């Protein structure tokens, strides 16, 4: 059946499109922003931590 063949090719094409978009965006982002900024996320950062801080938890 021709329908399933077209469907298969469409699936390949759409998958390639999505993967290509992600790859391009990934490269673009790495170019547009400094690596330091992209890697600036720190662990935790939750209001739970701030509450603990207020209680004088650390050190």
């Amino acid at each position, binding site marked *: 059946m021709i329908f399933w063949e077209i469907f298969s090719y469409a699936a390949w094409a759409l998958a390639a499109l*999505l993967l290509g978009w*992600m790859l391009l965006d990934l490269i673009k982002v790495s170019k547009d922003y400094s690596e330091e900024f992209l890697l600036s996320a720190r662990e935790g950062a939750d209001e739970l931590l701030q509450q603990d801080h207020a209680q004088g938890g650390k050190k």
Partner: protein
Amino acid sequence: MTAQDTTAQGGGGGERLYLLKVLGPVHVWALGVGIVLVGEYMGWNFSVGKGGALGSLIACWIIGLLYTCVAMIDSEVTSTVAAAGGQYAQAKHIIGPLMAFNVGLYLVMAYTMLEAADALVVGDLLVQVAAETGYAALDPKPFVVLTIAILAWLNYRGVFMTLTVNFVITAIAFIAIILLFLGLNPWNPSESLFHKQLLTDLPYGWIGVVAALQFGMWYYLGIEGTCQAAEEVRSAGRSIPLGTMSGMMTLLIAASLTWFLASGLLPWEYLGQSGVPLYDTSRMTDSNGLQVLLFIGTLFAAVASANGCINDAARAWFSMGRDRYMPIWFGAVHPKYRTPFRSIVFLIPIAVSFAFTGLLDQVITFSILSGLLGYTFMSFNVVKFRNKWPLGTIKRGYVHPFHPIPAILLLTLCSATYFATFLGYGTSLISIMIFYIVASVWFAMHRYRFVYRGDQFTMPWPRPIGH
């Protein structure tokens, strides 16, 4: 969401990127149940093959107890260590770097391999539809790749939409099981279900029940993935225990119904090797509506599971990158979508390659065993947690009751499940253990050089007792 509330000022004065904090308890539920529910549509029934229908039911209850311990322990530790990476961040703070590296690997392996298996299911379902409409030669590959590509793209573009979609499709898959139950006149079971005639004695005796524990894990495997959302949930201390516990209840209901329906309509020998047991159950009802519904349910459950797996595996990989356990490159956050975008993209070809190895049995065993290793870790993790920071020394979001009984119970049940895996899958078990041993030696000798020591400890807690 505007740009203002998505960036936070870092302590050092410069602007910092954070994962987006937008999720509620509903998303936590969708993440946990979404990953697991596919296990009711397929996989759990291999426990019937290993121990018979009644053996599977006993295994379902025993493993239910194991996961209740897991959910209790996890809720306490995660509501306190609220960080992406979940159990990985817990291990880092409570046990130490090498354990954390291993836990991170368990998570990435368990979820990426499960994702591959889920995508294969989607491909197989389409092959089945094609065959029924008269096209026998459909190649599932493009659809497997497309499933992974669409879900990865969704994940790449933002966690809120990803898990909102997951909530909708998971809810539909769950409702499908309920409707199948209602469609079979449960108020008059002897008319439409044949438990009396189909249930046999234990075919392998009690050792079969023990052996069934291995696949009994499918009823709940992955519910602990809720912790991965910790950094993206609003008020994690409340939402994660709530989402996890309600997810566990959903699964206990779904598991009981699934067993009840399938064992009442299918001979156990067939059930024990069926690829799509719930769909097969619906085929026995003579109702086209129920068949279509369960087909959609199977499809949605597989997609929801793959989606949650991409989310969780990427969070774990990202966290390991951020701490340099893995290359730092993976520790990046997308400046616009606030997702661990590099980890998401990196894991796509890996999931696809797992799906195309043709080693589905191996891949699934690897996935289950990685989960099991993680539960074993949780049992001594919580004991150390209570010893190093006794109740009252730090603020906990939730305190689980009866400590240390859940921990001891969990360790005992894990040991029984290792034994169950040994029965029938001994070679796989050893080869997977060797993988983790080699990886550990590699980490201790080589990889740990690149890790900042003190920076790994990020919680604002007092010094642990005994250090």
